[in-house]
């Protein structure tokens, strides 16, 4: 088979799996932005906490990655719920810049706590036995783990779509994003819908944090290092638009993967220029509204 094709297909799988990880992280953030107009800088911190929790479970309790995943996600979701009830209550009440500063503060606390507990070494989680290595088809070799990751996250994306489009909860959420005031008027408890979504967002971020350590290895500055990237994905997608975030995340990572392959030393240059162009034409993102 033509070598361009094999390379192209391998890169597509790489881009797709990374894009799905980005999407899982950004999905929670875009909802908080859409519903509460809250720019939660600490959002990536929840992915980090999920990852580190799984690390503890793997190292101290001898669990496998897939066994640790649900427990780590549940713990992160509980922590998210506790913070939502406490610190975030304060955060909602301040102005936009105040919110940013407070969530930056929360991020700092997360970084320092993780560093105190786990040290500064970079960690990744072990890949399950049956997903190690690569599958070889003719000339194409596809990382087994990356394929697994793409399938899992596509399933999760499908679930998110189902919940939002087909369930009562989804309808309430959509109403709250579209017009919070009106939603309140028709008897939707927007606060509660939001709290539930916030916790779900933390859980999604935690899934990404646990599964994505190969691309986003765990270290204390995880919470800040990837934040700008996630924010830009959300901005390009449009606040509150999951569809936008999905397209932006996939577009981002697939374009970036190909561009880096062709121009390795240029790094993220290509994608950032593209994103700048998109934002200058559509400041509210692909699916955003003013």
């Amino acid at each position, binding site marked *: 088979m033509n070598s361009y094709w094999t390379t192209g297909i391998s890169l597509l799988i790489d881009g797709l799996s990374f894009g799905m990880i980005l999407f899982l992280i950004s999905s929670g953030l875009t909802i908080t932005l859409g519903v509460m107009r809250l720019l939660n800088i600490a959002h990536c911190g929840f992915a980090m906490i999920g990852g580190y929790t799984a690390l503890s479970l793997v190292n101290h309790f001898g669990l496998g990655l897939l066994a640790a995943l649900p427990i780590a996600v549940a713990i992160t979701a509980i922590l998210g719920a506790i913070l939502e009830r406490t610190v975030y209550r304060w955060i909602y009440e301040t102005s936009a810049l105040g919110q940013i500063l407070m969530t930056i503060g929360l991020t700092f*606390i997360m970084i320092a706590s993780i560093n105190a507990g786990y040290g500064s070494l970079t960690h990744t989680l072990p890949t399950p036995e049956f997903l190690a290595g690569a599958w070889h088809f003719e000339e194409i070799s596809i990382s087994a783990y990356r394929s697994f990751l793409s399938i899992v996250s596509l399933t999760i994306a499908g679930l998110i779509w189902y919940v939002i489009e087909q369930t009562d909860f989804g309808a309430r959420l959509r109403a709250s994003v579209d017009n919070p005031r009106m939603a309140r008027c028709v008897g939707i408890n927007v606060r509660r819908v939001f709290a539930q979504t916030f916790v779900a967002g933390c859980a999604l971020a935690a899934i990404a944090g646990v599964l994505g350590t190969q691309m986003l290895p765990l270290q204390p500055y995880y919470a800040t290092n990837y934040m*700008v990237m996630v924010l830009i994905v959300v901005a390009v997608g449009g606040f509150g638009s999951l569809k936008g975030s999905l397209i932006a995340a996939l577009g981002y990572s697939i374009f970036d993967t190909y561009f880096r392959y062709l121009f390795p030393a240029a790094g993220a240059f290509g994608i950032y220029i593209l994103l700048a162009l998109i934002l200058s034409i559509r400041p509210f993102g692909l699916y955003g509204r003013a």
Partner: protein
Amino acid sequence: MAVLKVTPSKDTPKRDIAASFGSHRLGLSDALVWALAIFAYFFLGAYHQLGTQVIIMIILALSLDLAIGYSGIESLGHAVFFGIGAYAAALFALNVLSEPLTGLVVGGLAAGAFGFVTGLLVLRVRGLTQVILTIAIGAVVLQVATTWKSVTGGDDGLAGYQVAPILGRYSFDLYGHTAYLYSLCVLAFVFALARILVNSPFGYVLRGIRDNDQRMRMLGVPVAARLLLIYSISAAIAGVAGAISAQVTGLVATDSLSFLLSGNVLIMLLIGGMGRLTGAFIGGIIFVIFSDRAAAIDPFNWLFMLGGLLILAVRFTPQGVGPWIDRMGGYLLDRRRKP
């Protein structure tokens, strides 16, 4: 979208009104601050390095205050202008002329021009979208600087340029004595400029736009043009701060463009209080000195404390510590005036 607003203190309305009309007069306390700064020059020689850093950050925070505090432009990407000013001044010194004052002007102009261009985009939107756009622009410029190694030196940093003595007489020394006085003079100039600016009709228009841009538009104010002007001025001042940094450090690295710096300046402004110029002084001094002391001991504990402080500060003193100090100062002065 609301910003952290300056609300007049309720206890002394009369003085407040008086103050808002008399605020372009220089008072005793102003003189004292500058006297202290000069005192520091003579008696705290070992701290001139740190003092220079403080002053550079004050200038940067002042520029951000003009944008956020006075005009309601919510920027979380002010480091971009700082970095562009720094790179411009360094490249100018490297390729054209090593004279520092011209370098300052070049740094300021470069950043101001970039502010003008990006302002066309950033000022089209408000609130959160604006915040994210400024972050995105910061990320793009940082990428460009990292990638364009032939010009910026990438991750190795840009060095190897010489800065000529100021006015042909005072050269930069290892101890930072010249750098301290130099940056102090620039600060005095920038502060005077900012003061004149915010007390001019233009300054009042800006505050009007910040509080209610709709109404200002009705009054016939060309809101977009005014905002673009102040955004460019603010960018230019940030660029001047970057240029000083490039000249006194003798090196520019990509961290001068980082999101972290943008965040730090905002934190300084929050600590000192927005929309009051003096907030930049208080915040800059407190932040730089505390982070210097704390980071020397343990950077992670410092991060933890800073995180906690930020949350508590926004919660309990959304106007920063500036108003407290005013009140304390006012109390002292009141007592003195009473017979």
